[in-house]
């Protein structure tokens, strides 16, 4: 029991880190990592959205899509094939909702996150977490925890990376490698370092 939870948490945060190992969610990873404060805000948003998305999609999947039922005389209807379609719509509306709330109550944070909040909608990381929950056969609780931990892993990578980039801002990087290029190289080295965790669980 304990080991199972350890597997899910440590696995999601370190070993199969969404950004550094699965290479999901690279867009906000590169886009919002220019300074630590926006990175923190973005991390918060991602943790919130991913946990919520995991909970909601997992609930929908376990309750409606995964179980066979009889419909209009057709036996054993399994609607599992609809999952991607439903997930996309659900996540998109969820993000829309979050954005509306942010706009109304936290305009400063909303402005800081800029385009990246709506981008979470189409973010592979969020869709990925829903899909991986299904693939891993997680229960609703497990899914929520997995979503939360994956988002934590994302946040960890993002925060680490933003502090690195703040340092790189002062570096005398050759003109050809300035900006995103050096960020990608740094991310690559970071990903190499995180490979050390492979086989941990």
């Amino acid at each position, binding site marked *: 029991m304990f080991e199972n939870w350890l597997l899910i948490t440590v696995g999601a945060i370190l070993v199969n880190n969404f950004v550094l190992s699965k290479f999901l969610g690279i867009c906000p990873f590169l886009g919002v990592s220019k300074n630590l404060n926006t990175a923190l805000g973005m991390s918060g948003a991602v943790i919130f959205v991913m946990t919520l998305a995991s909970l909601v999609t997992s609930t929908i999947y376990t309750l409606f899509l995964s179980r066979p039922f009889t419909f209009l005389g057709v036996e054993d209807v399994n609607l599992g094939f*609809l999952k991607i379609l439903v997930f996309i719509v659900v996540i998109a*509306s969820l993000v829309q909702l979050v954005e*509306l*709330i942010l*706009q109304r109550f936290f305009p400063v944070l909303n402005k800081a996150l800029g385009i990246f909040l709506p981008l979470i909608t189409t973010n592979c990381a969020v869709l990925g977490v829903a899909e991986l929950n299904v693939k891993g056969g997680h229960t609703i609780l497990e899914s929520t925890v997995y979503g939360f931990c994956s988002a934590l892993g994302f946040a960890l990578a993002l925060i680490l990376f933003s502090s690195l980039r703040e340092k790189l801002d002062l570096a005398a990087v050759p003109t050809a490698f300035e900006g995103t290029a050096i960020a990608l190289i740094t991310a690559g080295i970071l990903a190499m370092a995180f490979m050390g965790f492979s086989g941990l669980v």
Partner: protein
Amino acid sequence: MGIVILAFIIALVVGVVLALIIGAAAKAFAVEPDLRKEALEELLPGANCGGCGFPGCGEFAKALLSAESSPECCPVCQPDSLKKIGEFLGVSVEGKERKVALVRCGGHNGVAISTPYNGVNDCASASLVAAGGKGCEYGCLGLASCSRACAFDAIEIRNGIAIVHPDRCIGCGHCVDVCPKNLICMVPASVDVHVYCNSPEKGVTKMKLCKASCIGCKKCVKASDEDQMISEGFLVRTNYSTPPNTDLIAATGCPTKALKLASIHALPEAPEEVEP
């Protein structure tokens, strides 16, 4: 066949339910977007130079709308766009004169005494160390702090002094703040005659340190009409409200050539040789 219909129905139901939720939320958490501000921002130059005293054009637009500032504060706007902004805001906008920066020092390496300076490469830091490498305490240090502050590439460091290119200067005034010697001032672009010296010291003291300094001989004051040149102690200045015209240079024959035309001063090979 049933499955297709079922899938269709389920997708429809999900869609409708979500649409209802979002719709309700949009109503509940609605925020009035400020259309006026956006429209006003369209009219502003968008250079975000900060010359108006606000951090960027967006903030300036906000200040305009709340009448905290007036359109004339924008140094970049051309008269016609100013007029448009005035119409938009419903205020009258007076036509204003374009202003450019002037670095009041002509003491380049050839004429002014200077000593090597070793340390942090910016003017403010250098001025902390024995008031900089220049022999004259008031002179331009030539370490390009103003040039770096200029977003429009209008200040060039040549031969140890900063030279403004009036044609490129848009008058944002950023350079004025960074100069530790307070050498830079904003002057009307239409005036071409300037005194390139800012040292209030006695002529003898100045001449020891810089051969291109204004020694306060007042030849130009005598040669010009009344009130065109102002003499303050040992320093003469152009009176920018009643400026002289360019003939003054020839009429005066300034002994140190501190009196110069800005347009000629900025030329690459300006004839500023001073006979020893």
